[in-house]
């Protein structure tokens, strides 16, 4: 017998030192991509040998909002849309900490849209990891700011007539220093991007396109979560450093993945500290 099956008590997965094992198995549906994203993030922490005393995982409300509860670090499960506001507070109060916001598209771009663009504009040092499943999953599959044209959700039963946000384009236009997009299938590349982003200073944004087999993909007849992942394999193309405005995201034709922006800019808390030091000299 080559497969060793062990009971949960003596199971030793290599990333479990970064995950609260007592909280497992997690609440996410079968074939949901959020678990893969958590795995990729934990793998990035492991390969960097990241100091967990400096890490703060912050999340808002929603399916992805549950992510903060699964990491063996300090964490905040904040009010709806305010994850970035909390992260800004954490960073300004103690610039040694590394806030990481893991949240969904509805939380970050609908309710928390203004927090997002202004934190990116100020270039506050934080990593924002957005799991995009194109709808509000936890409340029953309502349409949100990323729901594509003519997609069917609970609140758009005859097809969505609104134009969606292109999240990487919003982030790049707002002034983020690192912008990337991957799907849940690109677990390895996502881990590499996360490693790069964790070592970088400034406002970093990574979007991960994820299946929502229970709601969005069921209403739109995309099949099971596995079928959606197979579809991602067919339609995703990697175009690093392409113009984020042209990085299209369309389930019918193609999803452009890659790292789109990687620049340097003075960081907010550094500028704040240097200004404070100057004012004290006067």
């Amino acid at each position, binding site marked *: 017998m080559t497969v060793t099956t062990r009971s949960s008590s003596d199971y030793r*997965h290599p990333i479990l030192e970064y995950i609260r094992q007592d909280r497992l198995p997690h609440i996410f549906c079968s074939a949901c991509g959020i678990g893969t994203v958590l795995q990729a993030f934990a793998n990035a922490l492991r390969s960097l040998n990241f100091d967990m005393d400096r890490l703060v995982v912050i999340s808002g409300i929603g399916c992805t909002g549950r992510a903060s509860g699964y990491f063996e670090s300090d964490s905040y499960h904040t009010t709806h849309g305010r994850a970035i506001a909390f992260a800004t507070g954490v960073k300004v109060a103690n610039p040694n900490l590394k806030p990481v916001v893991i949240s969904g598209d509805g939380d970050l771009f609908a309710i928390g849209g203004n927090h997002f663009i202004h934190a990116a504009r100020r270039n506050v040092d934080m990593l924002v990891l957005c799991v995009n499943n194109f709808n509000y999953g936890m409340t029953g599959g309502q349409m949100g700011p990323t729901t594509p044209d003519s997609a069917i959700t609970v609140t758009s039963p005859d097809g969505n007539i609104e134009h969606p946000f292109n999240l990487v384009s919003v982030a790049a236009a707002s002034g983020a220093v690192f912008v990337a997009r991957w799907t849940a299938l690109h677990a390895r590349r996502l881990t590499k991007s996360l490693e790069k982003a964790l070592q970088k200073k400034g406002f970093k944004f990574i979007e991960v396109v994820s299946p929502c087999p229970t709601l969005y993909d069921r209403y739109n007849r995309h099949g099971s979560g596995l079928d959606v992942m197979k579809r991602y394999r067919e339609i995703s193309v990697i175009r690093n450093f392409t113009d984020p405005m042209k990085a299209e995201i369309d389930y019918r034709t193609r999803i452009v993945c890659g790292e789109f922006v990687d620049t340097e800019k003075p960081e907010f808390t550094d500028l704040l500290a240097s200004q404070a030091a100057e004012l004290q000299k006067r």
Partner: protein
Amino acid sequence: MLTRQERAPIVPEEESNTKWRIVVNEDWCKGCGFCYTFCPREVLEKSDKFNTKGYYPPVATNIDRCVGCGLCEALCPDFAIHVEENEEHSKRGGK
């Protein structure tokens, strides 16, 4: 007197000495199928037996083909599978 069945010869269980070992936690598996669908070497297959929740976990039917790339581990959303190096293999000087 012993019956024919009882006198059947004892065939020792074949010891596997492959370089990699795949560990599956059946209790945590939610049967999404990512591991056996995306395995580039077709090592894994869907099991015929279901776990306590009614999902079908993976089984490594072709472990000899495994090269330890760890894609199943990276894709698993439930932290229910990982690849380990088999210490016995290196001890016995396997390739």
